[in-house]
């Protein structure tokens, strides 16, 4: 059967659609042919797929062929079975008949004969030629057709249809199509069934020796072809897939060594998309096919079907894996294949796939995810082709053109060298080429790295090419010298020069020896002599010329410019597709390669852009090793482009990379570049972000704590990433309030130059007063030369674990806390009890710092009126053990007082200021100021009957204090202290007894007013006029009572005996209205508790000597009054009460109590008051008339009638009269009633009832609309 392969191929190639045979019984075909063929291809044909499920085929191409056609007639029956797929799938029998007899006699037997063959699917088309106008003919045609139907159609299946040539019925074509489709479907099913059976039969024999893959292939492909003809591509594809599986199994299973193939000219070009590349007969080998061609053939068939199914993405994905797996197969057979066949094949396959899939790909019709997948595959294909292309280029000597970047290095250095059986040797006539190459190698200098970076370039070769090539050659002859020493050689550079320069002396010798041997013309026949690099290149080039049949690829390797062109094309293709597939890392890396080419060509602008993308990717993701590789190139581009800002930034980024990535020398080069630019004239000074290089943080530990309005000094740790010291001309640091965002950010400035050493530095900044709140570090800005830099806040613990990218997440630590305003110090009077007035007294001012230092504080003292500071300006200061007022600090306070050491210092007041000593900065202290309160008024005593009227304000003096403190005297505290001064005694008097002889016993009670012990040494009374001391005493009590000691707040009494005396004329001049009590006393008290002995200057005062002070107080004595003359009584008011607006009669009864004597009337009225005795002296103008006057508050009362007038009152004792006045109360409430006064009579002579002022109740008015109250009342 395998012999039929050639035939099978031809048949398959010649027939590409389904055949429908036409049995033209009545010679009608030429007439109806155009109409029939116009229906082709069939639309929406319903066929069954392999699993017998109906499938709607959109278009089904077919061909009508007459049975008499030579194509159908000339076949042998055997062939028919084998190539059944090309046999007609339906038979259309075209008949016409106009006569029933004719039908019966001629047509029917003939048709019976035709349709008796069961194999065929047939149906009859009755063509009616009758014109519709011709009724007779039409009727006849109908009759004949009816007969036909009866004869050939069954209930199961309609096999007839009628075609009216002139007026075809509307549904005829549909009918026809459905009939044809039905026939095709049935035939298809039958044939598929047949092939499947055959295939099954064959498959069962698979493990038998007789099994022949070719036969299996023919059957399988026939089946696939049937499906393909029926446009059941899905099924066809499945057949090919199965075929592939089966083939791979055969290849792998059979232990037979078969020819792989691929050795022919042109095989290097992949035929993955061209199934007709080679005739199958050419690749048949025994009972199977050569792997190289056949697998490509299968893939090509599959891809053809996939394209028909409009699935280019699947082509790409299958293609990629096919290339990979096929490349592996090629590697297995590399020894028998031409040199680098595998690489060339992969390149061509990738490019062919890319081209085919993109041209078959309809943009934008796919789901985004699938589209992404597609571009990814394209990217992979490009990338694969690119790598192989680079490998070829390296072999022919363009290695220097290839950028030694991580991507290239990773791709090439991990990819093994090609392993030909024998490494190609230099052709005989290539000596000049070798020389040229050698020259080229000598000329190319390795690209200088920028900044003098001494990094070792990345390798592009898995092992040294020189060694690999020679080893491959040397393996021909054992024991080669080169092989021996080469095995000891460590990994060296790919270039021969690098290698020789680094070799051991022995190596150098060998190398030089080889060089001397290689003089032109001397390398013929030196098959065992090691080749030099140039020779390897030339040999590879020649070998590749043999291998590569694709002219375009050959051209791409012909010169370095052409190589670069192709390289760029592949790289761009890969990069673009990776970008479109969102594989940014792959894409951006390849952008870097494009940039490298652009850089080499001098398109620095373009290069910089691409490099920036790469750098952004690596730095964004923190892959510093990779960044270190690219960043110098970017910097170089920027330098060339004079992009100072970018260049500076790149330098800073280089500096901020991990230290181990660059040597110190290199880092110093970066720094010097920064400094050079900073101190040069910059056209546009740009701020430079050095956040990654200069970082800062607060000092570890708690934040600096300051009180409100306090300035301070902030210490900040600054990390410098520069390798050397760097001078910052100025810096400023902002602080941001954490609680209050809208508060203006204040910058702390330091204008002095700061030198930062590498690593940790501590700088201090002056801190002006800040508002209360907590602050974090903001931005550090500064200037290096012309360069303004800034660094954003993130703290770094140390350079060891620096992680710039993550530190944004670290919570900002407050560096400064400014407390809300609070009391920092307290000033108060040390003593609360009163001091002596008019004497020098120590005023204690208690100064209590509240957790705040009072170092060098200044106190301004300003006395108020009535108070003066003693001239000597002596101030004493002593520490005070008084416990703090904090309740919780009770225990601590006790400890303090135990450890307390009393300090004392005498200070002087200078210009109203006193400066605190240092010891007083933290401890409470008392400041004693010598003052004197001045009072001109004389102290007055009071009688026991009256309450004490003396106001406490009289003894009050104020002293204004202002304390300036804080480190910069920025804090002030002001307070006005009230100091209470008093006389030592308060005196009250009372007459204890009025004796019969006119002697009055006057008791003087002394109240001690101070918290000190008073000692009375002496007391005497200077009496006023009208009083004299009884007896011949001078008014002093018995001296034996003295000294009289009066304890604090206790009282003592002294009794004086006086009597009323006559005034004589001499004394008239010196008459005094008041009596004066003089007390000579001493005081012993402590200034810490209150009044004390007045301070005298050391010069005058003698310590220990009794100090006597004089206290004077005035006492008013009143002579006793005579009997009262007139009594005034307020008569009761009506009982129903008073009401506003209601008239009421006020009545007073005036009664004469005493007969008025003529003598006494003329006597001058004198009023004297004595306890419990009242006498009245009446002065009367007219004896029997009394002047009266009613006084009332006009707001409260309206008075009707006479307010003032005379009433007659008899001078007889007991005479009485009633004075009545009509009044009207105006306001409700308790008000004073009108008062009756007798202006002519001395007040002292009137006895009133009630005695004192009193109130009466007035009710509110009864509701009345007509009643009005004066508004102003």
């Amino acid at each position, binding site marked *: 059967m395998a012999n039929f392969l050639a035939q099978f191929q031809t048949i398959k190639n010649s027939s590409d659609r389904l055949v429908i045979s036409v049995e033209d019984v009545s010679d009608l075909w030429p007439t109806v042919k155009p109409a029939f063929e116009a229906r082709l291809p069939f639309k929406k044909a319903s066929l069954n797929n392999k699993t017998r499920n109906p499938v709607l085929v959109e278009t089904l191409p077919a061909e009508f062929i007459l049975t008499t056609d030579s194509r159908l007639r000339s076949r042998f029956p055997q062939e028919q079975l084998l190539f059944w797929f090309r046999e007609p799938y339906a038979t259309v029998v075209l008949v016409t008949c106009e006569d029933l007899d004719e039908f019966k006699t001629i047509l029917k037997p003939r048709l019976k004969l035709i349709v008796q063959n069961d194999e065929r699917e047939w149906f009859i088309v009755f063509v009616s030629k009758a014109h519709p106008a011709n009724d007779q003919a039409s009727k006849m045609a109908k009759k004949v057709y009816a007969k036909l139907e009866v004869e050939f159609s069954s209930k199961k299946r309609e096999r007839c249809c009628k075609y009216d040539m002139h007026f075809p019925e509307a549904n005829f074509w549909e009918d026809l199509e459905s009939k044809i489709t039905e026939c095709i479907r049935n035939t298809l099913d039958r044939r598929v069934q047949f092939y499947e059976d055959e295939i099954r039969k064959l498959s069962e024999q698979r493990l038998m020796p007789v099994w022949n893959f070719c036969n299996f292939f023919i059957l399988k492909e026939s089946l696939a072809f049937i499906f393909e003809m029926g446009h059941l591509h899905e099924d066809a594809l499945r057949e090919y897939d199965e075929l592939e599986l089966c083939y791979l199994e055969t290849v792998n299973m059979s232990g037979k060594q078969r020819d792989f193939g691929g050795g022919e000219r042109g095989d290097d070009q992949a035929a993955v998309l061209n199934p007709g590349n080679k005739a199958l007969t050419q690749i048949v080998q025994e009972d199977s096919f050569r792997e190289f061609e056949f697998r490509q053939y299968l893939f090509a068939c599959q891809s053809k079907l996939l394209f028909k199914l409009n699935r280019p993405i699947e082509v790409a994905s299958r293609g990629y894996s096919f290339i990979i797996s096929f490349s592996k197969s090629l590697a297995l057979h590399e020894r028998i294949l031409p040199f680098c066949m595998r690489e060339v094949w992969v390149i061509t396959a990738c490019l062919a796939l890319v081209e085919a899939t993109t041209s078959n790909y309809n943009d934008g019709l796919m789901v985004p995810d699938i589209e992404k997948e597609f571009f990814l595959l394209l990217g992979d294909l490009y990338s694969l082709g690119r790598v192989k292309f680079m490998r070829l280029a390296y072999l022919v000597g363009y290695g220097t053109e290839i950028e030694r970047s*991580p*991507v290239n*290095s*990773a791709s090439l*250095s*991990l*990819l*093994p060298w090609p392993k030909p059986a024998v490494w190609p040797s230099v052709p005989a006539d290539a000596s000049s080429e070798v020389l040229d190459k050698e020259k080229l190698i000598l000329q190319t200098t390795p690209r200088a790295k920028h900044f003098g970076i001494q990094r*070792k370039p*990345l*390798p592009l070769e898995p092992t040294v090419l020189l060694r690999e090539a020679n080893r491959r050659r040397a393996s021909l002859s054992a024991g080669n010298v080169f092989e021996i020493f080469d095995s000891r050689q460590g*990994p060296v550079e790919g270039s021969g020069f690098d290698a020789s320069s680094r070799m051991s002396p022995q190596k150098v010798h060998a190398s030089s020896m080889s060089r001397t041997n290689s003089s032109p013309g001397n390398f013929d026949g030196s098959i065992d002599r090691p080749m030099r690099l140039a020779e390897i290149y030339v040999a590879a080039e020649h070998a590749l010329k043999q291998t590569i049949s694709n002219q375009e690829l050959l051209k791409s390797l012909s010169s370095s410019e052409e190589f670069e062109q192709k390289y760029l094309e592949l790289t761009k293709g890969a990069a673009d597709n*990776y970008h479109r597939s969102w*594989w*940014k*890392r*792959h894409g951006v*890396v390849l952008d870097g390669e494009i940039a490298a080419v652009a850089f080499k060509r001098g398109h620095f602008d373009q290069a910089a852009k691409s490099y920036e993308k790469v750098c952004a990717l*690596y730095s*964004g*993701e*923190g*892959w510093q*090793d*990779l960044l270190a*590789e690219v960043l110098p190139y970017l910097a170089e581009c920027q330098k060339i482009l004079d992009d100072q800002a970018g260049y500076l930034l790149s330098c800073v980024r280089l500096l901020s990379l991990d230290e181990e990535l660059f040597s110190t020398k290199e880092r110093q080069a970066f720094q010097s570049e920064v400094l050079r630019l900073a101190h040069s004239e910059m056209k546009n000074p740009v701020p430079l972000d050095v956040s990654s290089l200069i970082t800062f943080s607060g000092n570890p530990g708690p934040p600096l704590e300051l009180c409100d309005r306090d300035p301070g000094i902030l210490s900040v740790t600054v990390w410098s990433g520069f390798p050397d010291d760097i001078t910052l001309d100025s810096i400023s640091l902002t602080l941001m309030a954490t609680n209050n965002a809208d508060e203006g950010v204040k910058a702390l400035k330091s204008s002095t130059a700061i030198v930062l050493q590498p690593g940790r530095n501590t700088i201090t900044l002056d801190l002006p007063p800040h508002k209360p709140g907590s602050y974090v570090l903001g931005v550090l800005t500064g200037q290096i030369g012309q360069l303004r830099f800034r660094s954003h806040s993130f703290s770094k613990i140390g350079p*060891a*674990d620096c*992680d710039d*990218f*993550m*530190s944004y*997440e*670290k919570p900002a630590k407050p560096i400064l806390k400014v407390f809300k305003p609070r009391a920092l110090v307290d000033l108060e009077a040390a003593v609360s009890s009163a001091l002596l007035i008019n004497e020098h007294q120590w005023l204690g001012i208690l100064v209590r710092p509240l957790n705040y230092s009072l170092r060098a504080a200044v106190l301004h003292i300003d006395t108020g009126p009535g108070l003066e500071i003693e001239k000597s300006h002596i101030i004493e200061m002593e520490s005070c053990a008084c416990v703090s007022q904090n309740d919780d600090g009770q225990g601590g306070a006790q400890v303090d007082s135990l450890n307390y050491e009393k300090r004392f210092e005498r200070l002087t007041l200078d210009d109203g200021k006193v400066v605190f000593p240092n010891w007083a900065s933290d401890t409470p202290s008392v400041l004693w100021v010598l003052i004197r309160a001045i009072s001109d008024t004389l102290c007055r005593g009071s009688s026991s009957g009256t309450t004490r009227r003396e106001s406490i304000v009289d003894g009050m003096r104020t002293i204004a204090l202002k304390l300036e403190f804080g480190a910069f005297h920025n804090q002030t505290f002001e307070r006005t202290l009230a100091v209470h001064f008093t006389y030592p005694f308060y005196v009250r008097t009372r007459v204890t007894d009025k004796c019969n002889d006119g002697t009055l016993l006057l008791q003087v009670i002394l109240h001690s007013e101070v918290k000190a012990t008073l000692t009375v040494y002496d007391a005497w009374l200077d009496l006023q006029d009208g009083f004299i001391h009884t007896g011949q005493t001078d008014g002093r009590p018995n001296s034996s009572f003295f000294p009289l000691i009066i304890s604090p707040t206790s009282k003592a009494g002294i009794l004086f005996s006086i009597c009323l005396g006559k005034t004589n004329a001499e004394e008239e001049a010196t008459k005094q209205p008041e009596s004066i009590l003089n007390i000579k006393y001493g005081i012993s008290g402590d200034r810490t508790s209150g009044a004390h002995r007045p301070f005298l200057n050391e010069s005058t005062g003698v310590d220990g000597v009794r100090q006597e002070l004089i206290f004077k107080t005035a006492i008013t004595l009143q002579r006793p009054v005579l009997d009262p003359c007139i009594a005034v009584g307020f008569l009761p008011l009506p009982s129903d009460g008073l009401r506003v607006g209601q008239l009421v009669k006020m009545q007073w009864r005036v009664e004469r109590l005493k007969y008025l004597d003529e003598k006494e009337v003329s006597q001058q009225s004198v009023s004297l008051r004595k306890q419990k005795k009242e006498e009245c002296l009446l002065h009367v103008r007219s004896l029997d008339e009394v002047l009266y006057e009613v006084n009332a508050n006009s707001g409260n009362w309206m008075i009707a009638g006479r307010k003032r007038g005379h009433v007659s009152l008899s001078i007889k004792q007991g005479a009485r009269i009633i004075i009545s006045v009509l009044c009207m109360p105006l306001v409700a409430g308790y008000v004073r009633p009108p008062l009756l006064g007798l202006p002519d009579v001395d007040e002292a002579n009137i006895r009133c009832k009630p005695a004192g002022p009193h109130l009466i109740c007035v009710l509110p008015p009864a509701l009345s609309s007509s009643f009005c109250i004066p508004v102003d009342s």
Partner: protein
Amino acid sequence: MATTACFIIVSRNDIPIYEAEVGVAAKREDAAQLHQFILHAALDVVQDLAWTTSAMYLKSVDRFNELVVSVYVTAGHTRFMLLHDSRNDDGIKSFFQDVHELYIKTLLNPLYLPGSRVTSSHFDTKVRALARKYF
């Protein structure tokens, strides 16, 4: 033991926070960088693949000639990436699981800021011991 193995932990921000060459092969000077490059490029694959499965161990996600990249993604999207040439799938899985445990212990350290570089020498020692054990 694998001849080449490079282990990297990549934080969820794609930043490498720990790297270790755990292979026994004589170290090529430039190997670390190439390995980094390969692993970095493999992040592209991981980003697509990580969301298609609920398993943490993604098996081998990428191949680079003879080298394979195996990836393990934690719940916090920290990726453990191993570039290796051994085929010991079970061993690698166990290695990842054990390293995950170690990593969680590191995370529990209050002084360790999640996402920052793992500098603990103890962690490093343990990881290398695990590598010796499983590869």
